[in-house]
């Protein structure tokens, strides 16, 4: 509850900070303080210290899995604001409001990771979505940004409609009429058509929100059109948090009927992996390539949804951390580039050796090369599916797709190191920016070299729910 309260309150504080000061540095510092408080508040929740005792009527359920998801979301947002907060000023003149919206999104994130009824899930998803529609269109004079925002809004509204229909069906399918996710299955022995229809509609709408194929059509346009700072936020923190909610929903509500829907998730995962990776190969713009790569990474995260065992839950937390940090790092570098195409990265290594070196580590992690966090994240996803004993074809397919992904990630590395060009950045990046990038790269490497240190604690936490 700490996180929900703090993020909502700090969103309002951010709004008011826009009235009392016009200094952009001051506003950014207020946001950083808020994020530090959020991380601390969430940690306090984990060790059992609560700011307030609120009777939530069992509508929220704070377990370690959800709180860990929160911790990763808030921690990555903190790193993201420290790295890219300065670039947010260039988007428009409403810096305080952008931060307020980001805090409201985090409030939605805290709900989606800890919900216990479909009612709260719906509210959380909406609290995440509506500020994102606005952030997508924040660059008002850019037509592409306007188009992306409208497209996202219309498609998002449609998928929300599907979600509500699914929730209504599930409500009707229970004997007593309940929204609580652990009661949805109670008193049932077989899947009724009404239950299945509700489940599938919910699956489709959640798959839309995490941009899984074939519900991914909005992703490249929206991620490409949105201001790059906000694309970074959407593609990482928001996406992995919705995944935590996705897994929570299917584990608690539909875990008992797993074999009935597993095949659908397998098909969606395979399609997502295939479309994301193959289309990314043909992109000319690094920003658009990263949009497709985020689809491909969502395909990997769907493997955890398919397996739904202990390994999968540990893995998704690790994946969330590794993927978020690496992608935030790449986007932070990308924002500073003058030219977003692959050619724009030519010769970056000679101009900005620190940027190029850290960027290489992030790209290696996304491709899943050993000694980076991405390797163990992918390893855990695959081994969770192997542990189920079925769907070995999907594991092989995923490995092949990961091999394809190496091609387009290495294209950036090749451009940076082996091609001549000026690799122009917009302004000389400051020392703090470079230092933070190095910190991020170190985190990625530590996750890859000593995953036991983190994973041991993770499994201890997750298994002692």
């Amino acid at each position, binding site marked *: 509850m700490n996180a*929900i309260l703090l993020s*909502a309150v700090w*969103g*309002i504080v951010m*709004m008011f900070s826009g009235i009392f000061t016009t200094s952009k540095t001051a506003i950014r510092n207020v946001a950083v303080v808020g994020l530090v408080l959020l991380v601390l508040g969430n940690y306090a929740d984990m060790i059992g210290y609560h700011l307030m005792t*609120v009777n*939530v*009527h069992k*509508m*929220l359920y704070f377990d370690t899995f959800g709180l860990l998801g929160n911790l990763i979301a808030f921690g990555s947002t903190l790193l993201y604001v420290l790295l890219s907060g300065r670039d947010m000023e260039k988007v*428009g*003149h*409403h810096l305080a*409001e*952008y931060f*307020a*919206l980001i805090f*409201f*999104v985090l*409030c*939605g994130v805290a*709900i989606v990771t800890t919900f216990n009824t479909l*009612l*709260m899930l719906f*509210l959380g998803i*909406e*609290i995440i979505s*509506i*500020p994102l*529609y*606005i952030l997508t*269109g*924040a660059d*008002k004079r850019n037509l592409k940004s306007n188009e992306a925002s409208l497209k996202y809004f219309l498609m998002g509204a449609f998928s929300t409609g599907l979600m509500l229909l699914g929730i209504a*069906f599930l409500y*009707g*399918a229970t*004997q007593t*009429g309940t929204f609580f996710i652990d009661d949805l299955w109670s008193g049932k022995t077989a899947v*009724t*058509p*009404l239950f*299945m*229809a509700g489940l*599938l509609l919910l699956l489709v709408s959640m798959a839309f929100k995490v941009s899984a194929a074939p519900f991914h059509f909005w992703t490249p346009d929206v991620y490409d059109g949105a201001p790059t700072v906000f694309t970074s936020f959407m593609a990482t923190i928001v996406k992995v948090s919705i995944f935590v909610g996705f897994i929570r929903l299917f584990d608690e509500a539909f875990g008992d009927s797993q074999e009935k829907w597993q095949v659908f998730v397998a098909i969606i995962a395979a399609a997502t992996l295939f479309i994301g990776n193959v289309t990314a190969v043909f992109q000319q713009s690094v920003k658009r390539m990263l949009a497709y790569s985020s689809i491909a990474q969502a395909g990997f995260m769907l493997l955890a949804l398919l397996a739904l065992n202990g390994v999968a839950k540990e893995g998704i937390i690790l994946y969330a951390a590794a993927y978020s940090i690496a992608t935030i790092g790449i986007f932070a570098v990308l924002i500073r580039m003058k030219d977003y195409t692959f050619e724009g990265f030519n010769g970056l290594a000679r101009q900005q050796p620190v940027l190029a070196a850290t960027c290489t580590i992030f790209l290696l992690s996304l491709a899943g090369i050993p000694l980076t966090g991405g390797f163990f994240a992918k390893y855990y996803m695959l081994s969770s599916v192997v542990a189920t004993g079925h769907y070995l074809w999907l594991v092989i397919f995923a490995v092949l797709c990961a091999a394809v992904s190496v091609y387009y990630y290495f294209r950036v590395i090749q451009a940076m190191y082996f091609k001549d060009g000026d690799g122009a950045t917009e302004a000389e990046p400051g020392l703090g920016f470079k230092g933070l990038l190095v910190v991020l790269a170190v985190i990625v490497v530590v996750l890859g070299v000593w995953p036991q240190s983190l994973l041991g604690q993770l499994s201890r936490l997750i298994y002692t729910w």
Partner: protein
Amino acid sequence: MGTTQLLFWFLSILAILGAILVVTSKNPVHSVLWLIVVFVAISGHYILLDAQFLAIVNLIVYAGAIMVLFLFVFMLMNLNADTEPQKNRWLKIAGVVTGGALLLVLVAALKKADLKAQMAEMGKGDIGLIHNLGLVLFKDYVVPFEISSVLFLSAMVGVVVIGKKAEEDKTTLGSQKYGG
């Protein structure tokens, strides 16, 4: 067939007919007017289900406020049948096929649905009164109720961000005008 059933069938047919006409009308203003019919019919259903408050709110908010907004948009954009974009024939066929597939699944699901238990309370009269609704809303559902305020607040902030004219715009316009 009692009065309730007669009313139910009348309202259902009215709602479905209205919904079909919303989609098929060439003139967008006609579509909006038919949409009002749909909302009124659904409000009637709410009254049949003893949800009087919901029925009135549905009428005021949807049939009233939102419809007026719709009509304003049409008037401002000057939409009529001529400006309707021509859609690709294949796109239409694909739409019919996917929509039909969804309809098939939903009809099959509802046909086999086991709804013997009476889900809706009918004829008891007081479940949907504001008094009872308020008690439930502020006791059992107080957490979602309060949290939805975050949703509305973020929407309001969004309106300001999108709608407010940036101050720099004025100064640049001014300098262009005077500085030449």
